[in-house]
């Protein structure tokens, strides 16, 4: 079996037993990228030289029996929203084209400390604004399960890279579902940690009060290892939690033993009815049965304020986004347009740069956010949205009175064809219906495969209380083990061959 089809934990095990070198392993992934990425377009940039240099360095240290972290030598892909020192970082935008960061995002630094070779930077919707990667200024990513369909977004590149065996692990960021929704539609695993559990420093901000960096992987345990490697307090991020991260890997291993006896799992009434595809709901109901079979009790919980979460999210996200992207105006970095026009001033140059550099979705959100923050509208929009946010947090708090974890379908529908929703922003935003409330409340959430609907992956989401990420991992690992046993193999093992798909396409 090809090295690239192994899980990250299996790869780490082979490395530890010196049955394979990191150089071989990294090269295998680089070869896989060469082989399929022209069809998938998960990567915006590949960095073979740096990756192989780090791989050889790990191999050297292992050969001389030095202590190495658990994932040392296992390669990784990084969402192009995260600053990488010396490697261009575009955030999927033309306006940042050519910008080479002078510093590493804290999570990138931690990945380097974990001695993981970085394969390259993955595609995303511009500034993470989108649910399909179609708003990337550099062209969309294709879903490895069906190349004519979206891979989810904004982190479609990271999810597709993992699903297409181009990387065993990837870093993503999640503002309203950008890790979890791509995981759901690509049959992979993605987790959004508790807000503050992982440093945001060095991530190009979309909505600072909602953004959280997290892992993309093919298994819950793989995600847990990466999560643990990047978690923890960062003095450079004032909103990061100054406390030891929860024992996530331990919880995932415990969960995989398949016993959830006594665990109270809630199902949110508001996150499963209208707007959800029947097939997705059916996989979800079956997963609930499986959870019962593992000893968990299932009860329905009512979260009435969730009906307003989508509206509140749109206002808060757009408001913060309009502020965060203000700095892209051509003065200090990236694109500069119109400075040589007759009569040009700093102001006209900034306007021209933003007009030329931003894509339609960024402009839409900047206009919406600017409006929502305007004097006279602030209370009605941003102010009201913050109140809804408080109500949503209260709904969650009430839910935790009677449950230990919540489950929902991760997305309302499976991967849709590229181009289908690109002209319909509201329909696009609905992709994140089930994932948004956890961003508003700051709680952890993760998506794992629940099965196939008409040959396309669907996902189930597990939510846990703030700072209790380990509960989420335990439930997810137990469910994953049981479902894998039912299917006879992991879902992703049965993904259609990419080259054969592309051959079909070419034949058309």
């Amino acid at each position, binding site marked *: 079996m090809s090295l690239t089809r192994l899980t990250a934990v299996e790869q780490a095990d082979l490395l530890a037993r010196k049955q394979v070198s990191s150089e071989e392993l990294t090269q295998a992934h680089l070869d896989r990228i060469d082989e399929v990425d022209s069809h998938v377009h998960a990567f915006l940039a590949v960095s073979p030289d740096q990756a192989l240099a780090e791989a050889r360095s790990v191999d050297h240290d292992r050969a001389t029996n030095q202590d190495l972290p658990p994932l040392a030598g296992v390669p990784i892909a990084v969402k192009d929203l995260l600053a990488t020192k010396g490697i261009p970082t575009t955030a999927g935008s033309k306006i940042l084209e050519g910008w080479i960061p002078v510093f590493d995002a804290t999570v990138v630094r931690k990945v380097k400390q974990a001695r993981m070779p970085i394969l390259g930077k993955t595609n995303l919707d511009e500034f993470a604004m989108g649910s399909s990667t179609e708003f990337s200024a550099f062209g969309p990513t294709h879903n490895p399960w069906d190349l004519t369909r979206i891979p989810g977004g904004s982190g479609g590149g990271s999810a597709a890279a993992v699903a297409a065996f181009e990387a065993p692990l990837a870093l993503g960021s999640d503002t309203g579902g950008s890790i979890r929704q791509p995981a759901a539609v690509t049959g992979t695993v993605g987790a959004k940690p508790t807000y503050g559990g992982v440093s945001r420093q060095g991530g190009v901000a979309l909505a600072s009060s909602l953004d959280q960096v997290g892992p993309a992987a093919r298994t819950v345990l793989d995600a847990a290892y990466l999560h643990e490697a990047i978690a923890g307090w960062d003095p450079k991020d004032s*909103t990061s939690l100054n406390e030891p991260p929860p024992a996530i890997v331990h919880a995932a291993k415990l969960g995989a033993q398949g016993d959830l006896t006594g665990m109270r799992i809630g199902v949110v009434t508001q996150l499963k009815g209208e707007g959800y595809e029947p097939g997705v709901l059916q996989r979800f109901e079956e997963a609930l049965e499986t959870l019962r079979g593992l000893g968990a009790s299932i009860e329905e919980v009512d979260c009435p304020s969730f009906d307003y979460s989508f509206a509140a999210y749109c206002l808060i996200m757009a408001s913060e986004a309009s502020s965060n992207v203000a700095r892209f105006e051509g003065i200090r970095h990236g694109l500069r347009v119109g400075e040589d026009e007759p009569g040009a001033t700093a102001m006209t140059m900034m306007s021209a740069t933003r007009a030329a550099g931003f894509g339609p979705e960024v402009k839409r959100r900047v206009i919406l956010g*600017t409006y929502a*923050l305007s*004097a006279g509208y*602030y209370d009605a929009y941003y102010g009201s949205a913050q109140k809804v946010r408080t109500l949503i947090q209260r709904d969650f708090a009430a839910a935790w009175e009677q449950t230990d974890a919540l489950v929902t379908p991760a997305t309302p529908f499976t991967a849709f064809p590229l181009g289908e929703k690109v002209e319909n922003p509201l329909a696009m935003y609905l992709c994140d219906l089930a994932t948004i409330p956890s961003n508003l409340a700051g709680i952890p959430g993760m998506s794992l495969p629940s099965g196939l609907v008409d040959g396309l992956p669907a996902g189930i989401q597990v939510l846990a209380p703030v700072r209790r990420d380990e509960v989420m991992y335990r439930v997810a690992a137990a469910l994953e083990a049981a479902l894998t046993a039912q299917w006879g193999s992991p879902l992703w093992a049965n993904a259609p061959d990419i080259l054969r798909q592309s051959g079909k396409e070419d034949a058309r």
Partner: protein
Amino acid sequence: MTALPMDFDLAIERFDPVFGIETHVELNTRTKLLCPCPTTFGAPPNTQTCPACLGLPGAMPVLNAAAVESAIRLGLALGSRIPSVSPFARKHYFYPDLAKDYQITQNVNPICIGGHLDVELDDGEVVRVEIDHAHMEEDAAKNTHIGGTAGRIHGADYTLVDYNRSGMPLIEIVTCPVEGTGARVAEVARAYVAALRELVLALDISDARMEQGSMRADVNLSLREKVAVDQDKVPYGKRSETKNVNSLRAIERAARSEVCRQAGLLAAGEPVVQETRHWHEDIDATTPGRSKEHAEDYRYFPEPDLVPIVPDPAWIEELRRGLPELPAARRRRLAREWGLSDREIRDAVNAGALELIDATVKAGATAAAARKWWMGELARVANERGVGLEELAITANDVAELAALVADGQLTDKLARQALAGTLAGEGSPAAVAAARGLAVVSDDSALLAAIDEALVAMPDVAEKVRGGKVQAIGAIVGAVMKATRGQADAAKVRELIASRLGV
């Protein structure tokens, strides 16, 4: 077309001025407000920057605790309320000197709410200025416009931006409107900024150098019709905001100038435009800047990259206990200890001599001697040179040394002034100058008596007059003796010795 300014006294007869002052004080913390960059003044452009203060994508702010401490100490000294939760906010506008195109500042529940500053005028009258609030914020970068006219952006060929100043820690102190100052409006405005500066220096939270921009005051001023009763019920007029007036003297002159300009407009039936104005020292007038008729929409919202300041009440109490003696109380104490009148203390304050006198007393001089030298000879020299006392090349220790030489009778006042001149000329401490120049009181009686006998021989007729009872004639002999000893004798002693020699 535009009305001429009105005479100040006439303006005050017809109109009632109201003013408010916003003062930016740059805190003297070692690092910037939201990043670890150093704050050293005068470093080469763009050498004290990092991803955060350059606004690079992904960089995040981290609050400097020392700046918060300074802000809270100022609030405690002003009698402000320190809120239990004090958040930061983003203020948005596009400008090349604003690295993120928003400024991190405070609007709701700033770190100091309310408070007051009692301002003593030159004649001793005390005016209480109410403080609206003080908030913390980061400074913008510094633009230098090249080409065109006089450093203005309009017509400039290009602009250089120095981000060393980006993110420098500021506290902005905003007064409530100050009413009822009438003809003293400009004096009160100046005295307020002076008192605030004194307070900031006493707290040691800023260098407060107005000429370097580490303390900058904007003067808001408006006029309203003067009425016989219920003046406070007349609504305020349209105000101008005169920016960055960079000396105490300029505050007073700018306020006066605005009173005259606005009165001229109003008297001619022309409107006062709500706008920022720039003060020009050379023409003694303000010129228009940005119109503020249509208030810019800054789209404030809570800064999500920072958690609000939640100061521990115990910490606040600790800071309160650690406050230094505040300037007004200190002045009262020093007046008492030094035995000076209110007037004398005020003169010393106005001359900028209080700290110097205090330091001289601490170095061992009596208060009377310290005051005498700083307010006398040294003030004269400083005035002559057009510099401040603190700029003279002499230390409090030097002055104390000088006072000791006089007190011990080693130098007369006249010799002491010569020693002082030597010190000011860089010749060393007063004692060193005295030694080098051979300045010393001739106190050896035998040497003096020899000189006296010589003088008596040379002036027998004068000696005879004195013996005959014309005692005032003794002055001529004293003069001769002083001349003979090159002024190094104590004249009183000489007089005494001559008298005993002549038996009168």
